[in-house]
């Protein structure tokens, strides 16, 4: 009975893994194929089933008819990381304040203010395209990294506030009171006592910010022209009348690589018990 259960368990895990791994495998093999290899049906084994070609990868690094992915990759990295760090910093401070102090603004209370933050993400992004465009133009920040960082902060901060308010609400108030008694002021209480306890929350919020920031295409596309290109936009520009599956596959692998690394790092952290026992 026990072996049967174990076998079923592993079978389920194996099926799920195949389901998850298959697209990666598909992209990986396709990225090493040429036009002939791609149209020749589903083939997996290089040299045996198809002749491997570096054409796809070459077109990502300045090859004929391709692009150079290094600059957009760097741009994406700068915009995503800067916007995430700023969003997490501001968002965490805002969330701590919303979780611990009472605010009143006109008819609004803490919960209304928190909802106001989240409501920014309820709006369809298209609504914001024209205002953001006009605002960046008047600031002279169109088609620039600082401009994109500014817009991404506006997009990512609600996520940070949302995740962190919830997290701080779960950190017992008794901890704050204890810290005051031990001689902390509100700032040292936050910095030395509450924040170390909220580390798992920071990791989760950071992960969300990086994923959303890295994957955004819409604003990267509408607020830039030719100077500042982010990775998703660069990848789309690869497309032509004959879809270059090999270069698109290579580009897809390049663009998800940082997120895969992030996933492994976060998984390590969370499974090490970062979350366990963080909140009573």
């Amino acid at each position, binding site marked *: 009975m026990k072996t049967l259960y174990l076998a079923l368990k592993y079978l389920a895990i194996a099926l799920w893994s195949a389901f998850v791994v298959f697209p990666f495998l598909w992209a990986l093999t396709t990225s090493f194929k040429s036009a002939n290899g791609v149209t020749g049906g589903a083939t997996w084994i290089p040299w045996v089933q198809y002749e491997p070609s570096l054409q796809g990868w070459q077109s990502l690094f300045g090859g004929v008819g391709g692009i150079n992915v290094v600059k957009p990759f760097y741009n994406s990295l700068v915009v995503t990381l800067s916007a995430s760090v700023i969003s997490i910093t501001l968002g965490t401070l805002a969330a701590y304040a919303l979780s611990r102090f009472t605010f009143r603004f006109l008819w609004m209370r803490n919960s209304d203010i928190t909802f106001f933050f989240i409501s920014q993400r309820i709006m369809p992004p298209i609504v914001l395209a024209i205002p953001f465009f006009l605002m960046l133009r008047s600031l002279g920040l169109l088609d620039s990294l600082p401009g994109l960082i500014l817009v991404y902060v506006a997009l990512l901060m609600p996520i940070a506030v949302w995740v962190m308010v919830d997290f701080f609400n779960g950190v017992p108030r008794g901890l704050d009171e204890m810290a005051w008694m*031990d001689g902390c002021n509100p700032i040292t209480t936050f910095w030395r006592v509450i924040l170390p306890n909220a580390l798992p929350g920071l990791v989760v919020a950071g992960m969300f910010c990086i994923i959303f920031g890295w994957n955004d295409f819409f604003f990267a596309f509408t607020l830039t022209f030719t100077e500042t290109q982010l990775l998703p936009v660069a990848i789309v520009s690869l497309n032509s009348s004959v879809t270059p599956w090999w270069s698109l596959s290579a580009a897809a692998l390049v663009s998800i690589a940082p997120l895969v690394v992030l996933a492994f790092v976060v998984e390590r952290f969370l499974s090490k018990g970062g979350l366990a026992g963080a909140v009573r």
Partner: protein
Amino acid sequence: MAEIRLAKLAHSYGNGTNALKPLDMTWRDGGTYALLGPSGCGKSTMLNIISGLLKPSEGRVLFDGQDVTDKDTGARNIAQVFQVPVIYRSMTVGENLAFPLVCRRVPTPRIKARVEAIAERLGLSRHLNSRAVALTADQKQLISLGRGLVREDVSAVLLDEPLTVIDPQMKFELRKILKDINREFRLTMVLVTHDQNEALTFADTVVVMNHGEVIQAGTPQELFERPATTHVGTFIGSPAMNFLPAVREGDRVLVPGAGLSRTAPADLPTTDLTLAFRPEHAVAGGPLAGTVTRIWFEGADQVLALSVGDASLRIRAVAGAETVGAIVRFDVPQDCLRLYHQGRLVA
């Protein structure tokens, strides 16, 4: 270490009810006090006002004659142990103990020495480098206490039902540690509890509260011998004090049908009278008689429930051969008979 004075202190939360009715009280330096009362009687409110977590709506709080009402918690130099252990989970036991000194910018060698001394005293030396979360509940409470003790100049240690979540076995041990520490460090300690046993064994002075009001403050002995109200008499002591409706006849007050009586003070009203005595004060043999209706075995003692006339009461007696239905003769010495009018002690 400080003398704590509460001057005309009162508090009400937003909804208009008085969480704490106006009171004056002085807690002497180095004394042990217990705030005893049912849940919601205002004892935690009082504690939070002293520690500065709550600002009183009226009155002042004075430490050694200095007004600290407007000072915030950190400036009051108070230590508090809460009902549920509060520890800094991201830190080790040693870092937890050191934290109040780190916050107060004490030099590192001094911190190290202090933490080691306190850990030694509380039996936490072995755990100094362990993560604080890994410890048991009673050890966590010791860490909480330790964070107060590392400060040599701590004004007072406030204990807000610190033993509630502790195993019964450890409760006794922890209470003993608290008492020893009070004696050793000569700290002013205030214990909030709803457990009379805890209050009576820990404190020099027990403050009984109900509905936001201090009903009686006195030594455990005084509370036991002369409860100020019928409420205190019921709350303190196990089994509770016997309260019997009484009437005045001339210069005597008596319980009709029971044979219990005592002299009446000159200006005593004639209605709403109660005669009371402790089950422990009844002596075997004498003019009074009752029928045993129930027996509780309590080791060397037993508690007998008797019906005497229309009244039912309890007495404590040496374990014997009494059976339910038997007639038991007993007496209550005159100096042990208390008289209450409208629930308040008259004589």
